[in-house]
């Protein structure tokens, strides 16, 4: 292997690793606040890319249908809950929030989805369509189970993953799509071409990691969000609304995932079921971070990306075997060195 190849492989590994890092961020975020292991994160990555691809073709993307469907379901659930609690007066406000707002968003997106919509606007519309799916998903699937054990929440995540994958196949078809890059510029770095797009991906991930680290570690609101995961009643007693925390977290996480989808679209063909393996690799990164630490999660994701790139050069048939076998000693090391607080079930 000579230097140019080494550099290319490293660039590939770092770029992919940066995308996995975004997913790892989302996973750590969701777990830290809601104790949910967010398996469907990959689906939202795919939805991001494929929605943008749909807009590129000048047609209203199928995501609008999903948004409408979920908004209706959430609205219905809110009505039932309000009646059960005897708060029928709250119903109009609730419906406006959970159904009205998403429907308005859907309508605007429909109207905007024309072939002459500029690229940056298409990205905004994509994010605007995908992000609300997060809080809606939380409301429909996870909020009723907020006190359940981590295992049950994990199984629910798996079920949601099945449903979203199936919906993805129905909406976007079995074939994949690519999206245009933000910029096709590239420049020379000691004889090797580095594309601006890859650099953008890496820089965005880094910026987000740093932002999250500070937000959750240093700001009061961030710490409040973390507190809800450990003790919901305690959080409510000090004035934190756990449901609001959960919804916001999911919104943020799905925004991250959708954005990751927009970022990887230029490099890869994305399919309705690409998401699972991508989120799995993000999961590896998140676990290496102990599901608490953002920098460690990002480092772990980067490690996976690099391992993958080099393994695919050396022995492509056994690439997965190599990556996943080498992860085990890393996990072992992390497990032994972190002080683990045993879960009280």
């Amino acid at each position, binding site marked *: 292997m000579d230097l140019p*190849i080494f550099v*290319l*492989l490293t660039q*590939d590994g770092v*770029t*992919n690793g940066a*995308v996995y890092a975004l997913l790892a961020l989302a996973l750590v975020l969701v777990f830290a606040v809601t104790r949910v292991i967010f398996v469907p994160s990959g689906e939202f990555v795919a939805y991001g890319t494929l929605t943008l691809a749909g807009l590129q073709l000048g047609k209203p993307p199928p995501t609008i249908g999903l948004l409408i469907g979920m908004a209706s379901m959430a609205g219905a659930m809110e009505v039932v809950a309000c009646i059960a609690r005897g708060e029928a007066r709250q119903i109009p406000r609730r419906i406006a929030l959970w159904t009205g707002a998403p429907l308005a968003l859907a309508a605007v997106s429909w109207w905007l989805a024309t072939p002459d919509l500029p690229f940056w606007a298409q990205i905004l519309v994509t994010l605007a369509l995908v992000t609300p799916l997060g809080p809606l998903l939380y409301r429909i699937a996870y909020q009723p189970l907020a006190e359940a054990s981590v295992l049950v929440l994990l199984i629910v995540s798996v079920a949601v993953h099945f449903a979203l994958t*199936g919906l993805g*196949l129905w909406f976007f*078809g*079995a*074939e*994949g*799509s*690519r999206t245009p890059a933000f910029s096709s510029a590239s420049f020379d770095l000691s004889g090797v071409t580095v594309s601006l797009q890859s650099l953008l991906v890496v820089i965005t991930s880094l910026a987000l990691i740093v932002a999250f680290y500070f937000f959750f570690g240093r700001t009061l609101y961030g710490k409040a969000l973390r507190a809800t995961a450990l003790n919901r009643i305690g959080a409510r007693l000090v004035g934190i609304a756990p449901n609001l925390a959960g919804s916001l977290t999911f919104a943020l996480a799905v925004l991250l995932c959708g954005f990751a989808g927009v970022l*990887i679209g230029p*490099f*890869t*063909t994305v*399919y309705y*079921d*690409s998401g*699972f*393996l*991508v989120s799995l690799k993000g999961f590896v990164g998140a676990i290496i971070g102990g599901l608490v630490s953002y920098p460690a999660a990002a480092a772990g994701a980067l490690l996976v990306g690099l391992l993958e*790139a*080099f*393994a*695919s*050069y*050396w022995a*492509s*048939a056994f*690439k*997965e075997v190599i990556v996943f076998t080498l992860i085990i000693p890393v996990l072992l090391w992390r497990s032994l060195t972190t002080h683990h607080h045993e879960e009280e079930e």
Partner: protein
Amino acid sequence: MHQRSLSTKLFAAVAACGLALTAQAQINVGVTLSATGPAASLGIPEKNTFELLPTTIGGQKVNWIVLDDGSDTTKAVTNTKKLISEDKVDVVVGSTITPNSLAMIDVVADAETPMISMAASARIVDPANPKTKWVFKTPQSDSLMADAIAIHMKANGVKTMGYIGFADGYGDGWLAEMRRSAQTAGIKIVGEEKYNRTDASVTGQVLKLVAANPDAILIAAAGTPGATPQKELAARNYKGKIYQTHGVANPDFLRVVGKDGNGTILPIGPMLVFEQLPDTNPLKKSSAEYIGKYEAKYGKDSRSTFGGHAWDAYLLLSSAIPEALKKAKPGTKEFRAALRDALENTKELVATHGVYTMTPSEHNGLDNRARTMIRIDNGKWVLAK
């Protein structure tokens, strides 16, 4: 008066029996295919094709029962067992992919029910033995197509080649065949790489192949994932010839591969470019009929070679069923045996992918008429020379 009313009653009774018999004499065809899961891009066109099929053959009502097996072997076997024991099918069509089809062989052989597979590997029907005597298949074997590639390569002065393909049954099958064909044609394989359908990048694999600098590279993939190595090769400025397989012959591939696909060569069943075939080619008419129906319902350029495999299965059945009906009633063991015999006796049946001639030792039945080389020119499929 007395006699006439008696004979009228008798006539009515006989007619009623006859009607009842014909009413029960519907033919059940069970289909299991992979409309979801990794092989969805192959199975969906097949499923679409089954929805176009007529509901009578040879004057008998035909009931098409289509099930999805999600690209999973266990499900394919379960579906087959259900079709045989619950729906009492006379013939099983499926599955879309080789592992599923291989798993089904034992089941259909035990139930003495004929099976027409839509999967590629020759292993499904070879070697001839008491089990595979019940199994037929419509797609061209990988070996037929691999030979076509090797011949084309040799004719164009290719001495060394590289391979990159799926890490699954499709890729494995192609690699095995290509190794054999290349050796026969005196072409050396200098690099073998594998990748997964959903892989985000194939940089490592492509770098390694390009470093070996072969004259040509074969990409063995199905559907749009075939574009991933191709675009990477273009990014690496690879200047050699690029060959693909019939798995990518669908419009989505063209959409994704874009400009980077120009000049790619692949062997396919002629149906894909039937408009460019000479009128003397018998496949032109049959392909026109099928593709006309398909595109009328599913849109222009939605044609897929995989759908053709399903249509060819229908054509085989439409020629074999009338023969079998002469010997037995549908729903009986004898009918299934007769159907099997009739399928095995198919001679010069003009279908969309080729002309089928079956024998006891040849249950695929295709020859060189079932393949042609095409090239991508400016985002379109064009007959290659």
